[in-house]
């Protein structure tokens, strides 16, 4: 890989503005009652913000494939940890085990 292209100040500032706008959106959305959807919406907006920071500010979009795989692996193992733990907590009591 040769030198990564230098990103313009304009791009960085635009991403920063987008992050601020998304922060306002998070706040405004949180003041409305969407029932079960409040948390997923908040997490979705936070996910978009995180993706902007990781891809642009941390420059992962210009990193080598190996670094990209390592970065994604963090998310991958995080999902496994959450999935298997919730697999336990969310299903307790489903079978009505006698004595519980």
């Amino acid at each position, binding site marked *: 890989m040769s030198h990564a292209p230098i990103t313009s100040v304009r791009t960085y500032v635009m991403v*920063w503005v987008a992050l601020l706008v998304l922060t306002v959106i998070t706040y405004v959305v949180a*003041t409305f009652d969407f029932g079960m959807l409040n948390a997923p919406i908040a997490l979705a907006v936070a996910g978009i913000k995180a993706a902007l920071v990781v891809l642009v500010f941390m420059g992962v979009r210009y990193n080598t494939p*190996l670094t990209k795989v390592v970065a994604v692996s963090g998310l991958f193992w995080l999902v496994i940890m959450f999935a298997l733990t919730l697999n336990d907590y969310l299903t307790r009591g489903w079978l009505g085990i006698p004595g519980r």
Partner: protein
Amino acid sequence: MANVTESIGARQALAPEGAASAAGAHTLHGTAAGHGHHNPNLQHHFYSMEQQLEASTLGMWVFLVTEILFFGGMFLVYLVYRMLYPEAWVLGSNHLDVAMGAINTVVLLCSSLTMVLAVRAAQVGSRQGQVINLVLTIVFGLTFLVVKYFEYAEKFEHHLVPGPNFDMTLPQAAQQQLFFSIYFMMTGIHAIHMIIGIGLMLVILWMAWRGRFSPDYYGPLEVSGLYWHFVDVVWIFLFPLLYLLGAHYGAH
């Protein structure tokens, strides 16, 4: 990858004449990088400055993956107890100061912008740009900690710190105490990361001030920046999950 064969050639060439001339010392990298003089910042086990930066970036990401899972464990604890005690989580969340949390979110986003501009300044060879942006990054980082101090102080005043002085007259006090345990654990460890980050930035600022970085060599600045942005990303998730969770119940 053409560098590989060139470099091997360079090393073979070095052996017979190594003792003969001072030129031998820089032949090792000089031929490999394709320049007459190799960059003095190039460690001898790398072929080129690009490869060195890639290796540093990869190493930092491996560390950040361990950090993702470290914070991930705490987010998981938060989630499990939130599912068990949803009302207490709303009550606890509504004791937090949304304005202060929002200010700190903006402060951290600004610090990430100045951080990335400092790296860019190194890429375009501006020492002044590095120094100014690093100073701003440190100032934003300190601002975050000052706001955090006032938040924590307020929690102590209102007996919301888990322990013998916790206000047990609150509804669902025991469960709310659990919420605040998790609040202090998550924000406290995040704040420790901020303090470490500011320490890192002071070292990087010193190096930038001394003119250590150039468009060819800015690895330490780049890698410290990755750490800084990561700490920002953690806060991006902490803010809605801790502060905004009960906002739509309007119980302020």
